[in-house]
């Protein structure tokens, strides 16, 4: 049996079910308890599991992230929440120098089963410090895993995997994605990391679309289909580990690669995907690979300027038309 629900509800259900299954799971962060998170993701958990396990913290991102590490190392499975992913930067030392490395530098003698959840993404006039997506930064750091699902089915299954996983996971939720609806099974399920999904089949162009760009790519693909161009849209779902097999299999069919991500282009995840596919499957490519990404500028507040920075279905469509020309 399946039901239709939103991403937000699916996240909430995953947290609820996992906390019920395992008493060592706790949630901490700003506004997660009584307020139930600004988007309602943690709504009802405080009432159900109590103040010991669902904790409102002071505004101390570094301590939230660092305390998750200490808790994970001593027997809890903490889920730390950062209100906007931009502010993970405040806890960067804890995340990059401690959490990512501690298992390795202590010779594998310590386990760090923790999840840091944070909303990513731009739009809505939130300007420079509330609009960023850092998937490329954290994919760059050995020791971390990075998840960025975009459908209700995926967020639920991948969040459960993240929580049960014995390594540190960054779980990025797109702000524009919380209300997206989809079918979710009633029974318990998990989704393995590193397995991409083909969202739409096509024979002419492979679009690897990251996070919210999946939906924009699907919209562009519909329009292009009217023009006789069939796009295959791949949602990698996890930035690290990354499923290159599925992408290369698709490129072997379409011989054209477009990568789309909302974060700005320079040194972004698109560069890595293009480089890997080029190195592994150079002979399959009939055209230069293309990256459609955010512009290299802090997010401006003004609506017109903002819209120039964020890639959408039109930018994607135009890039593909140019490629096919």
């Amino acid at each position, binding site marked *: 049996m399946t039901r239709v629900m939103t991403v937000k509800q699916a996240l909430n259900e995953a947290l609820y079910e996992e906390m019920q299954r395992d008493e*060592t799971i*706790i949630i901490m962060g700003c506004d997660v308890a009584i307020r139930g998170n600004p988007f309602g993701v943690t709504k009802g958990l405080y009432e159900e599991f109590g103040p*010991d*396990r669902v*904790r409102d*913290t*002071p505004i*101390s991102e*570094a*301590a939230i*992230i*660092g*305390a*998750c*590490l*200490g*808790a*994970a*190392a*001593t*027997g*809890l499975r*903490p889920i730390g929440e950062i209100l906007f992913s931009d502010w993970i930067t405040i806890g960067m*030392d*804890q995340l990059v*120098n*401690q959490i990512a490395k*501690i*298992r*390795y*530098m*202590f*010779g*594998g*003698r*310590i*386990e760090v089963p923790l999840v840091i959840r944070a909303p990513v993404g731009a739009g809505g006039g939130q300007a420079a410090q509330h609009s960023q997506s850092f998937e490329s930064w954290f994919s760059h750091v*050995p*020791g971390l*895993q990075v998840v960025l699902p975009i459908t209700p089915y995926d967020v639920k299954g991948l969040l459960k995997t993240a929580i049960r*996983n*014995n*390594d540190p996971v960054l779980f990025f939720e797109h702000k524009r994605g919380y209300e997206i609806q989809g079918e979710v099974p009633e029974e318990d399920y998990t989704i*393995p*990391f*590193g397995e991409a999904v083909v969202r739409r089949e096509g024979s002419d162009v492979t679009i690897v679309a990251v996070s919210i760009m999946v939906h924009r790519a699907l919209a562009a693909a519909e329009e292009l289909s009217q023009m006789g161009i069939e796009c295959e849209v791949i949602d990698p779902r996890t930035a690290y*580990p990354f499923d*290159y097999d599925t992408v290369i299999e698709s490129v072997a069919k379409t011989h054209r690669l477009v990568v789309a991500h909302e974060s700005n282009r320079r040194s972004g995840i698109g560069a890595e995907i293009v480089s890997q596919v080029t190195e592994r499957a150079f002979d399959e490519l009939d055209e230069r690979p293309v990256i459609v990404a955010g512009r290299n500028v802090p997010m401006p507040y003004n609506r017109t300027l903002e819209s120039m920075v964020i890639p959408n279905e039109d930018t994607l469509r135009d890039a593909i038309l140019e490629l096919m020309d």
Partner: protein
Amino acid sequence: MVRESSITLEESKAALEEFKKEVLAPMEPPPELSIEGQLEIYRKMAVIRVFDTRVKELWKQNFIYGLAHSYVGAEAVAVGACAALYEGDYITSTHRGHGHTIAKGGDLKKMMAELMGKYDGYCHGKGGSMHIAAVDEGMLGATGIVGSGMPIAVGAGLTAKVLKKDFVTVCFHGDGGTNQGIWHESINLSSTWDLPVIFLCENNQWAISLPYSQAAKNPRVADRAIGYGIPGVTVDGFNPFAVYKAVKEAAHRARNGEGPTLIEAKFYRYIGHFVADDEQYRDAATNEPWGALDPLRRMAGYLVESGVASQETVDAIYEEAQAAVEDAIEYGKQAPEPSPDTLYEGLYSPEFLQSLGEEI
């Protein structure tokens, strides 16, 4: 004023006089500490002294690679603190972690093998001196970034609270760490939540070349406790009994659910910051007055003068420490190098690593 030395001899002497007046405490063991317990404190202090003295020599001889920070002169802090703990209690450490590891019951052979980068070391040669960890003994690892161990102790305290376990966590950190932002966040969070954590500041008065008097307007770290609504005490860091008593009391409070305590163990780093520190930033003569408070000599003097042990017993303990360290050195030298196929070992959990295959 441009200084040639971070501190003048007069300033050093004046600071010592003030220390003697305000902090120095008589060597008085707590009533519950048996003679055996007192001798064990001396034994561990002697092991740390010998271990870190030999580490410097081994580093110069290229048996130890990279960086190593000596705990010489600080022995009373870690040993006094850990003597007041139970098995099952945790500690977090700093970049100067050998003393903490030994005090918490770490194995000298695994330590020395780790410092020599060998596979039989605590961290299979991945951590070295700066990341030494003895997790099974409750030592949650040394960290190379000043102040960064603070929230780890908070998290351990949270585990105790949520799972209703009665362990406490001692968070060793230096005076340098007190000026990191995470220091504030960590103490604030654990005091707000009444977590069973003991923040033990090893105030050796030096952050490499910067004296604490030039790093903070108020030189008393313990005063900061007021800001967090928790007790703060300054104790004689050359005196293991003084540290023991403060930690014992703080642990009692913590186990009672009364939250954290800030303990400032004040002493003086009269040796270099690390094995290769040429100490050009200070006149060597400024160290000498403080050397007179050498905690190991002080403890040995106390044991003999108070009649707790004979000079022969004290000497024998020191010689045993020397023998144990030499054994560990030999073990480290003979231990195998990590094989190349262990390069990625420990990067992620074994099941995930396996799933990656060649794609790491």
